[in-house]
């Protein structure tokens, strides 16, 4: 898919909360072996944080890097599966906090881990159609996982925000995108329940791998490109193994995915995961670098994007903290008990 007018990312911002819990603490609490854990530690929101507060900080970074006056932003779309309110938009709080209200569209999107790239697609289309000059797409999660479940070892907190605008102001221009969706029930959470359920091995081949590969190949074929044409590649990263396997299946190398492999350091930030990887790549990409991006959301589907970094990227970086600044700003949580408290998993009976 291509836009009617050329568009791209004019600003980006990331956020990762400071607390980190060791995967070995979680494993020990449930009597699991500490060998072969998927990640060493994962990020956890502080007691005063949620998907909205984290989205606000990422959005501020995106606006700061763009230099765009907030009242010129015409849409604030937040993709998340951990909305603080079941009914009440998160987008209005974010829009108000960055000063984009009141002449702005705002909404929340949900598509499991693909909600963030869904928000990016919508923001890109708003700009690309000529309806607006600037639109913000955010993917942010304080990821939910059932205590004792395998997902608890990786479900983390964080995400990123991308402000889309005209190509001539872009830090990275969008060449084309593709979306690939089927009805595949690999992971879901029913109404009024606290934690999602997943289909164990079913979440792999017919779900994550099939959709990521199809959306990626569709975009590459549409553009007549090969993986070697890209300097960087970012995939949804539920764990280090899945991300590396899908990259290898498609013909991307470790060198291409290393810069965006945020999962290795903080775990799976659900709707935020692929976006955080893209933000990390924009922190290091150089003018002219091609960037391949492919999200995945259970349910299931993938959005793929092809970007080219512009000469404006390097100068914009200093206006907001880098992904690495957030990754370095960490505080180790003492034990599983403190982790339960921070992730509000303790319920008084």
């Amino acid at each position, binding site marked *: 898919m291509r836009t009617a007018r050329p568009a791209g990312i004019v600003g980006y911002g990331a956020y990762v909360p400071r607390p980190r819990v060791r995967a070995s603490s979680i494993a020990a609490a449930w009597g699991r072996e500490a060998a072969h854990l998927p990640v060493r530690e994962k990020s956890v929101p*502080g*007691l*005063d944080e949620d998907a909205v507060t984290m989205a606000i900080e990422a959005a501020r970074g995106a606006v700061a890097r763009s230099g765009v006056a907030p009242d010129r932003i015409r849409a604030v779309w937040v993709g998340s599966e951990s909305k603080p309110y079941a009914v009440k938009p998160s987008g209005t709080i974010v829009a108000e*906090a*960055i000063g984009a209200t009141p002449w702005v569209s705002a909404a929340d999107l949900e598509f499991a881990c693909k909600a963030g790239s869904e928000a990016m697609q919508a923001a890109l289309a708003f700009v690309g159609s000529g309806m607006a000059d600037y639109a913000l797409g955010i993917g942010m999660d304080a990821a939910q996982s059932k205590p004792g479940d395998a997902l608890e070892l990786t479900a983390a907190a964080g995400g990123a925000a991308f402000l889309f605008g005209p190509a001539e102001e872009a830090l990275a221009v969008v060449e084309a995108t593709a979306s690939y969706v089927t009805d595949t029930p690999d992971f879901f959470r029913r109404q009024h329940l606290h934690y999602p359920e997943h289909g164990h091995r079913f979440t792999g081949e017919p779900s994550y791998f099939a959709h990521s590969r199809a959306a990626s190949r569709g975009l590459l074929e549409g553009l007549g490109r090969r993986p070697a044409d890209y300097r960087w590649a970012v995939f949804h990263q539920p764990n280090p193994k899945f991300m590396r396997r899908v990259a290898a299946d498609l013909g991307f190398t470790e060198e291409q995915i290393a810069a965006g492999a945020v999962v290795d350091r903080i775990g799976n930030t659900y709707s935020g995961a692929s976006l955080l990887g893209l933000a990390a790549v924009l922190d290091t990409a150089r003018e002219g670098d091609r960037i391949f991006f492919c999200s995945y959301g259970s349910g299931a589907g993938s959005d793929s994007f092809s970007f080219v970094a512009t000469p404006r990227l390097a100068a914009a970086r*200093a206006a907001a903290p880098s992904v690495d600044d957030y990754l370095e700003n960490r505080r180790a949580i003492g034990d599983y008990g403190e982790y339960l408290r921070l992730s509000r998993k303790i319920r008084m009976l």
Partner: protein
Amino acid sequence: MELPRYHRMRRALYRLEGTSCPSCSRRFFPPRAVCPACRKGGLEPFPFSGRGTLYSYTRITQAPRGFASVAPYAVGMVRLEEGPLVSAPLADTDGIDLSIGMPVEMVTRRIHEASENGPIVYGYKFRPRLRPPRQ
């Protein structure tokens, strides 16, 4: 629930919006309606940068009602770059040695929720500045 009050204060709470006096350029936070120096109204909205330095601080262990679940926590007074002195909760201070004069920056966080079925109040806090001051 105090919905109207928090709604009225949302710009100040969410993004540290104060007011400035068009005649003497003094800036106020929290926002004032009348300039005490010029004794005139007609003050204009002023967006504070959120950057400042820690003027004083303390640690709360015996929290007031409604805040016990987040205790212990730190509160402080912050001298904003643009002048005003603001009292506010501090964020992300665990394991950090706070000191008078340290650079801080505004973040928007959850401040309070009266009950599980009530509204969530978001507002400003200050945290140790993540990076050196921007150019």
